[in-house]
């Protein structure tokens, strides 16, 4: 699993790829939070287009960031979720909390 973190305006763009499980969760949580603080980011867009696996540990990282950002009045969006992973996200209830989009432009537009 890997991730790339970029920033556009006051929005952090977090691209997660590979397998997002317990092993990856601690590193991802620490790094994303570090970037949020360092960059003063208000919103987050998760790019999950190259994600190949996720379980409740990975989903917990996304949910935790959603909670932190929402508490501060920010917004979170997700785009590019592969069909094989969508079912896990639906069962988790994440799709009812966070808006999902097909592409980056739509996700970013929803934030701004």
């Amino acid at each position, binding site marked *: 699993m890997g991730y790339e973190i970029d920033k556009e305006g006051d929005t952090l763009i977090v691209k997660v790829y590979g*397998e997002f*499980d*317990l*092993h990856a969760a*601690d590193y991802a*949580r620490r790094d994303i939070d570090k970037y949020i603080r360092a960059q003063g980011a208000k919103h987050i867009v998760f790019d999950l287009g190259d994600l190949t*696996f996720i*379980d*409740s*540990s990975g*989903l*917990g*990282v996304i*949910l*935790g960031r959603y*909670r932190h950002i929402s508490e501060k009045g920010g917004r979170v969006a997700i785009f590019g979720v592969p069909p*094989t992973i969508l*079912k*896990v996200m639906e*069962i*988790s209830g994440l799709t009812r909390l966070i808006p999902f989009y097909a592409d980056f432009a739509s996700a970013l537009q929803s934030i701004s």
Partner: protein
Amino acid sequence: MKIRNRMKLEFLSCSENVGLARVAVAAFASGVDFNLSDLEEIKVAVSEAVSNAIIHGYEGAATGAVTLSASLTDGNLEIEVEDTGRGIADLEQAMLPGNGSDPERLGLGFVFMKSFMDDVSVWTEVGRGTRVKLIKSFPVNENSGITVEN
């Protein structure tokens, strides 16, 4: 009971081994007629069971032993994930969605296991450990696999 194939793997309770466990079971299960969606669901269920053993059984310590075994019988994949950790004091509570106080964890491990497998059984004893058995059925093709009479 006819056993087509079986495997057993023991590893330390470090998070790197969650991936090893799910890939091993998916490779093992690919020997019968599971489709790709089934295999993805099996991987999630195994990932949750092994993660639970690490997080809850051994409280994150990477020094415990996790035993993963799987067998293919007549139309069923049976998986067992066992730890000798602290056990679960309130199993009923542990199996409810959103259990636990950690806001970073969904508390959906058992929910995913139940959603993706046909049957989930748990044996646990405080101070002795926990064994989770997961069963998923598959279409039987009589001409495939190794058959061992037990």
